[in-house]
């Protein structure tokens, strides 16, 4: 360990092993319908496995991109050599049009303002490098995607200051919470450079309302800071209210020529909407030329494989395909989410009302022995070991209220989901019968408990795939 950088050695501290139990246990004992029917079902991985058949059938009908061909001619050489960080023009065009389509064509995007990156992981880190110095901070509403601690902070030295959201108003962002976070940052002598939101939210599965978006825009305008909207789940919105992108709100407020226009940036990826996390396709979209210029240069550290750009440019340029895919995918997600929500309801478990994402934000507060994070951990271990479901505890998402869990529904078959629900139902029945939980009446707001240290200093897991 000697002679290494601080970044390389800081991982050895502050890493609570209990969080990784879930993953390790899953790896050791993975559910398989035939080989291991009693194994652990993976519900901690936000993957979209519902619509591969649509992609596969497109591939079968379109053999050219597969064989590196265009109009019968081989373009292998061209692709093999193509490393221009401006990206394949046909791909960027197709991607911005796809993004516009997802937003009902209420906004349009200019391919020259888009920068391709190796996944949203790289996009978020790159934006930090462009917008903040080491030691400066971004405000993030909690609960948030655990990977942000690595993506936004690790190599950049940027700090995250939480904007506390609670169930009292369904975790919506309030002006009070924003101001409180800004103040907290100042108290810690941290210069705030911007706000980063995920819309639709991970882990909540909800879309930001127009009023929240307006609030955010007003806030960043007053403070003169940036707003990053990570819209990686924008294509997974399956019911009302629909998806409203921050760009739409800016447009509605006639902000196109104003200063704040240049300080709003979008992050996107095809990992969730198209279910292609392996392909490492991410993007930064910014109205600010300087950000685009700087981010483009930085993208050299993580360009998208030209082989992949080419395949996807063909796929996404097929408008008939994209139109059908978007609507079919949303339908399937809606059905699947409904399955989980109803199943949990039958087990006496409620979820935050959600309209997007690949997961539900599940309320198991009534199953906690006490209103503490220790009790949450205790419950979680039971769910992993006894119920044999790997789900994500709210504390790992920096939630201020114990008892919430993120449960994914789109990364398994219907049959497996059914089984998972059944196991959970059996567990709840047994659990309640044994008097393990508090009474269902305890609905009073819990006091903010100190988060366990390891949550605050959450670092990288040894073998964690890039799940969200």
């Amino acid at each position, binding site marked *: 360990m000697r002679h290494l950088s601080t970044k*390389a050695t800081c991982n050895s501290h502050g890493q609570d092993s209990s969080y990784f139990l879930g993953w390790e246990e899953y790896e050791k004992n993975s559910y398989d319908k035939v080989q291991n029917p009693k194994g652990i079902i993976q519900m901690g991985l936000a993957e979209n496995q519902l619509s591969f058949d649509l*992609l*596969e059938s497109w591939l079968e009908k379109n053999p050219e991109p597969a064989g590196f061909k265009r109009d019968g001619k081989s373009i292998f050489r061209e692709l093999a*050599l193509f490393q221009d960080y401006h990206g394949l023009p046909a791909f960027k065009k197709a991607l911005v049009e796809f993004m516009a389509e997802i937003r009902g064509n209420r906004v349009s995007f200019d391919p020259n303002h888009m920068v391709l990156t190796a996944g949203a992981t790289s996009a978020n880190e790159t934006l930090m490098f462009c917008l903040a110095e080491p030691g400066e901070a971004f405000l993030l509403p909690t609960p948030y995607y655990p990977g942000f601690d690595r993506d936004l902070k690790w*190599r950049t030295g940027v700090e995250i200051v939480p904007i506390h959201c609670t169930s009292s108003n369904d975790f919506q962002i309030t002006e009070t919470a924003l101001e409180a976070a800004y103040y907290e940052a100042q108290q810690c002598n941290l210069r705030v*450079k911007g706000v980063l939101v995920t819309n639709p939210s991970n882990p909540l599965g909800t879309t930001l309302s127009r009023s929240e978006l307006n609030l955010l825009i007003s806030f960043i305008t007053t403070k003169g800071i940036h707003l990053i909207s990570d819209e990686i789940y924008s294509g997974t919105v399956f019911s009302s209210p629909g998806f409203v992108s921050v760009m739409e709100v800016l447009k509605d407020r006639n902000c196109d020529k104003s200063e704040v226009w240049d300080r709003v940036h979008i992050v996107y990826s095809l990992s969730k909407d198209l279910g292609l996390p392996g392909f*490492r396709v991410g993007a930064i979209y910014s109205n600010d030329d300087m950000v685009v210029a*700087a981010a483009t240069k930085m993208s050299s550290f993580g360009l998208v494989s030209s082989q992949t750009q080419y395949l996807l440019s063909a796929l996404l340029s097929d408008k008939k395909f994209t139109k059908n895919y978007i609507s079919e995918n949303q339908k399937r997600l809606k059905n699947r989410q409904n399955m989980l929500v109803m199943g949990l309801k039958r087990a006496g478990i409620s979820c935050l009302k959600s309209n997007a994402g690949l997961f539900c934000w599940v309320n198991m507060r009534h199953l906690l022995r006490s209103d503490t994070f220790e009790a949450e951990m205790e419950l979680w271990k039971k769910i992993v070991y006894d119920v044999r479901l790997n789900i994500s505890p709210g504390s790992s998402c920096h939630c201020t209220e114990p008892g919430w869990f993120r449960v994914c529904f789109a990364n398994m078959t219907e049959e497996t989901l059914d089984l998972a629900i059944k196991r959970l139902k059996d567990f709840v029945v047994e659990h309640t019968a044994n008097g393990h939980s508090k009474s269902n009446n305890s609905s009073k707001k819990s006091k903010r408990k100190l988060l366990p240290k390891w949550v605050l200093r959450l670092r990288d897991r040894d073998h964690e795939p890039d799940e969200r």
Partner: protein
Amino acid sequence: MALNKNQQLLSKIATNDRHGENSPYFDGWKAYDKNPYHPIDNREGVIQMGLAENQLCFDLIQKWIRGNPKASICTAEGVHEFKNIAIFQDYHGFKEFRQAVANFMGKARGGRVTFDPDRIVMSGGATGANETVMFCLANPGDAFLVPSPCYPAFDRDCGWRTGVQLIPVNCDSSNNFLITKAALEAAYERAQQDNINVKGLILANPSNPLGTVLDRDTLRSLVSFINEKKIHLVSDEIYAASVFSTPSFVSVSEIIEEMECDRDLIHIVYSLSKDMGLPGFRIGIVYSYNDAVVNCGRKMSSFGLVSSQTQHLLASMLSDDEFVDNFLKENSERLAKRHSLFTKGLEKVGITCLKSNAGLFVWMDLRRLLKEQTLESEMTLWRVIINEVKLNVSPGSSFHCSEPGWFRVCFANMDDVTVEVALERIRVFVEKQQVKNVTVEVALERIRVFVEKQQVKSKRKFQSNLKLSFTSRKYDESVMSPHMMSPRSPLVQART
């Protein structure tokens, strides 16, 4: 005003120049982009010789792809794998991919060493690999020594976002640009005196831009140097399989098998961009003998994983031993042939290059065409080469070469015909210089004769007449005073 405001709103990294793209080096690229050569559509265009690409073996790869449809997830034969591959984002990478890359790396070193697939860490090209290694080994403000001339983008890759500084260790033609322990020691001492914390040494072997391989003795002395100082050695071996004649390539991985060394200090960077000619596919590799660096690097690889589609293709291709053996052999032979064609063509017009046996370029010696042995003269000559000779070559200064007059010229990114066109242009250019020189010689001879005549006529009027003769418009303006003739060359300098 808006710019200043932007600069406040953006980070220092985003607004500084360490990305290196504002250097005059890119003028050549701009000239090429504005007027690219094409054998049919634009025969007067600029020929790109500044891009180190290997375009010689695509036919071999294409043939393999056609014959192996399963390796593509989009063919009828391969599509059943589509879902599993599209989902796979584990930063360990496919086991088959790592095994195949380890296999390829071992074969590129003649099977003299083997590589452990579990030490193979992915990155966004060698660009990403070098940055990742720096993030793992050094803190902002720390320094790495780098023998120069070196790859221009090392500064961006190693230092832009990491805050690491690079300290050049100058090598020159006095000893064929060899790295000496003395030079390293001197650079190290100077850094110590300046209170700079040197964390290691980074170099490319085979060398870019020299095209040479490090000999065993030099490698051993480098390893003992870093061992003694307890600093890291990062060996960028991106051209390992682009060695086409003797002496053969010796990798640091071989050296550490034969001498005492703290392996925690040894790291290799690799990529398939040069050896296989696949820069578009972004296949970078960090291979470290230090477990902590492997672990940390692997986590960092999340920022630049290789597309699973690409991993799948290459896993299949590189585990085909027959293909790999044939590819390595063919690639080597074709590079040798092209290198020979080019260097012989240059020799015919009296241009020499550093003797080289690797890489996709030659290190061309144009010192004698410089007006003065200065950077300015090199830049002037370079602009002539771009604008008049219409070749984009790379001036030595962009590689931080301390000796003016050297140019890197790439030869593997074009077909044979274009090579001939380039050689012809060079021939014409050199001959023009010689004609100019002959004219100058004739002119000088006339001056001498005239002066002698004057001396005979009148000694007193000598000076003024001489003055007259020098201002006479009879002579080409490029004629310089005999006093200014370079002591090195009998030829008067070219008009640059």
